[in-house]
């Protein structure tokens, strides 16, 4: 099982009699590709990257607690200042016991999560046991690493429950992969972190964790223009994931901050009596 460098190959790999890679000793030679015609490699690279640099307008978060993993996200998609959708599914169901979150390019996230789901299923079939969360996140990170610098925009968290218990990994388009207990990804993440970090305890019940996750997303959508729509919350337990709630953040606002009658209305009421 080698690193997936198929992104570099310019022609279809030859499958058939005596493909050279197997006859050679384990280590293949580095695949070659055309270099850009420029004298300033560093500057050229920077310009290209800046052009496609992902601006991950969203808020997603996930945290591990006593009862498993809580995963939450908003549902707004924006194109610059235009809100293109208020009902995007940002929590992707990779398989019945693993979830992925979407931040960055919607198409990239959706495609690569589907692709990861395929790989996880193939692993299950070949090895007669489920893939671990660390294994799945590693597969995704390696896939993304092989497309490094080509403009993919993916900032995702892989959450699941495997033999070793609850697992949570952050994976991004640079090929970075971090193991952790609490993550929030997207333009609304600073606001979400504020609420999440101050309210987090490992020993929470599922209801408390649900409320914390929901509140964190709500506060992020309140202050961040690129986040909004519906706050969805999922819980991953030993028997797989379950969607717990999906509340419109507008309604959540009035739930947390109910409107007090204005003084002008008081005056009107008194005058009417």
């Amino acid at each position, binding site marked *: *099982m*080698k*690193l997936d460098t198929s992104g570099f190959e310019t022609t279809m790999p030859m499958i058939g*009699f*005596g*493909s*050279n890679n*197997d*006859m050679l*000793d*384990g280590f293949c030679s580095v695949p070659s590709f055309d270099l850009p015609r420029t004298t300033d490699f560093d500057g050229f690279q920077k310009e290209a990257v800046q052009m496609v640099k992902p601006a991950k307008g969203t808020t997603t978060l996930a945290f591990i607690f006593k009862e498993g993993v809580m995963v939450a996200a908003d549902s707004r998609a924006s194109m610059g200042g235009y809100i293109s959708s208020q009902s995007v599914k940002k929590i992707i169901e990779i398989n019945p016991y693993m979830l992925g979150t979407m931040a960055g390019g919607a198409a990239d996230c959706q495609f690569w999560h589907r692709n990861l789901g395929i790989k996880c299923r193939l692993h299950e079939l*070949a*090895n*007669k046991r489920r*893939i*671990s969360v*660390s*294994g799945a996140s*590693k*597969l995704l990170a*390696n896939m993304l690493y092989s497309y490094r610098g080509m403009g993919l925009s993916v900032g995702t968290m892989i959450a699941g429950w495997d*033999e*070793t218990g609850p697992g949570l990994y952050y994976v991004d388009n640079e090929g970075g992969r971090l193991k952790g207990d609490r993550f929030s990804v997207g333009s609304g993440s600073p606001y979400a972190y504020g609420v999440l970090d101050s309210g987090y305890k490992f020993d929470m019940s599922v209801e408390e964790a649900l409320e914390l996750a929901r509140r964190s997303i709500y506060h992020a959508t309140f202050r961040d223009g690129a986040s909004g729509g519906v706050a969805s919350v999922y819980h991953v337990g030993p028997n797989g994931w379950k969607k717990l709630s999906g509340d419109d953040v507008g309604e959540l606002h009035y739930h947390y901050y109910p409107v007090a009658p204005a003084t002008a209305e008081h005056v009107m009421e008194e005058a009417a009596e």
Partner: protein
Amino acid sequence: MARYDRAITVFSPDGHLFQVEYALEAVRKGNAAVGVRGTDAVVLAVEKKSTPKLQDSRSARKIVSLDNHIALACAGLKADARVLINKARIECQSHRLTLEDPVTVEYITRYIAGLQQKYTQSGGVRPFGLSTLIVGFDPYTRIPSLYQTDPSGTFSAWKANATGRNSNSIREFLEKNYKETSGQETVKLAIRALLEVVESGGKNIEVAVMTREEGGLRQLEEAEIDAIVAEIEAEKAAAEAAKKGPSKET
């Protein structure tokens, strides 16, 4: 590099792959190897042909480890074995890197068997001339396993098996005498099976054990093996005496 397009291993009119069968012949001429799976230990024992006086015996080890928790013994062409073992070792590490988990015994067996099969269906190459016995404990579940692969690329799991010279007689012995054993009993069973076809003595047998608690492969010293062989002979003598004793009285 020019690719070969002419396959050497081709079907015969009655459906045989002669190259594979000839490879099995090579295995039959190789040294005897026995593998036994116990409840908490797995044992490999291999026949050691007399080492020349000047040879450093440590460089000619017949039982090797593929990873901390997997060991392999084989019968057949030793040079082919080296190539296969190196590829398997790389695959064990590659799996650790991409999946962050050690391989299971079944996975690495499937990989080795897959390699052996590939060389029966590729241009310009011949099959590997060896059968392997692979033992180990799966990570996390710690279940012991023993697998065998052969030149055709098939593999299966066994409670106890033998390959190489006189493997049929050893297998017959094992079928008659196998029972679930643990610890030292498993070692004794493996050595008893091998002694059916090999001259007894520590210098003619190489034995290695892997236990669930210890992990890692432990090669037994010659003195240890001699001690166990002596025990076995004593047990055999006692059994003989017990048989003869009563019959004399009647």
